[in-house]
């Protein structure tokens, strides 16, 4: 249910990502101190950190037969890892 809204947001953010991604060269000069950039990518990272583990969990259930608590825990850990690494990346580009 939460997924429904997140996927919508995710979709819009991907559109943006492609647009900006294609012209991404002198990255740091454009990103440092850019609050809109940071806010947007924090949102993107959060959406991705939710969407990716949910998608991978379905794949694990259906194609690997891996179900239940252990899968949930690993996927939560993956979500946390993605969120942390994503936050570090955004912070690096914005503040570093």
């Amino acid at each position: 249910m939460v997924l429904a809204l997140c996927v919508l947001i995710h979709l819009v953010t991907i559109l943006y990502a492609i647009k900006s991604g294609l012209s991404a060269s002198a990255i740091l000069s454009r990103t440092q101190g850019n609050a809109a950039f940071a806010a947007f990518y924090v949102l993107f990272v959060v959406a991705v950190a939710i969407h990716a583990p949910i998608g991978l969990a379905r794949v694990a259930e259906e194609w690997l037969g891996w179900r239940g608590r252990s899968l949930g825990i690993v996927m939560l850990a993956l979500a946390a890892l993605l969120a942390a690494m994503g936050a570090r990346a955004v912070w690096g580009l914005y503040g570093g």
Partner: protein
Amino acid sequence: MAANVSVSGPTRRNDWRARGNIGYAAFVAHRISGVCLALFLPVHFWALGTSLKGAAALDQFLSWTDMPLFKFGEWGLVVLLTIHLGCGTRLLLIEFGRWQGLRKGWIAIAIAMSALVGALLAAILLTK
């Protein structure tokens, strides 16, 4: 028969012959691209995170990305992302939009969009 009787046992499963429909192909493209993107994400975040160590470290990393294999990888990922976006948009329209059939046109759009983005990016990367 008792209410909670559940007869179960091994069943036969479908093979590729039952999977010839275009919607199935769209599913496979969507899933494979999604798994590849998920596997790539940590690498992507790690690479951008090296900018924490300063512009020099990032530059060193970016010089890596000049290698042809790396460029090909980048190109593939953007194409995968476009495929995932196109197929995902179709699903959102089917699931949240007004019912208008199986929206196979969107599969064509996803193919066209990824081909276009792929060509564009290839042109940019090759002329840089």
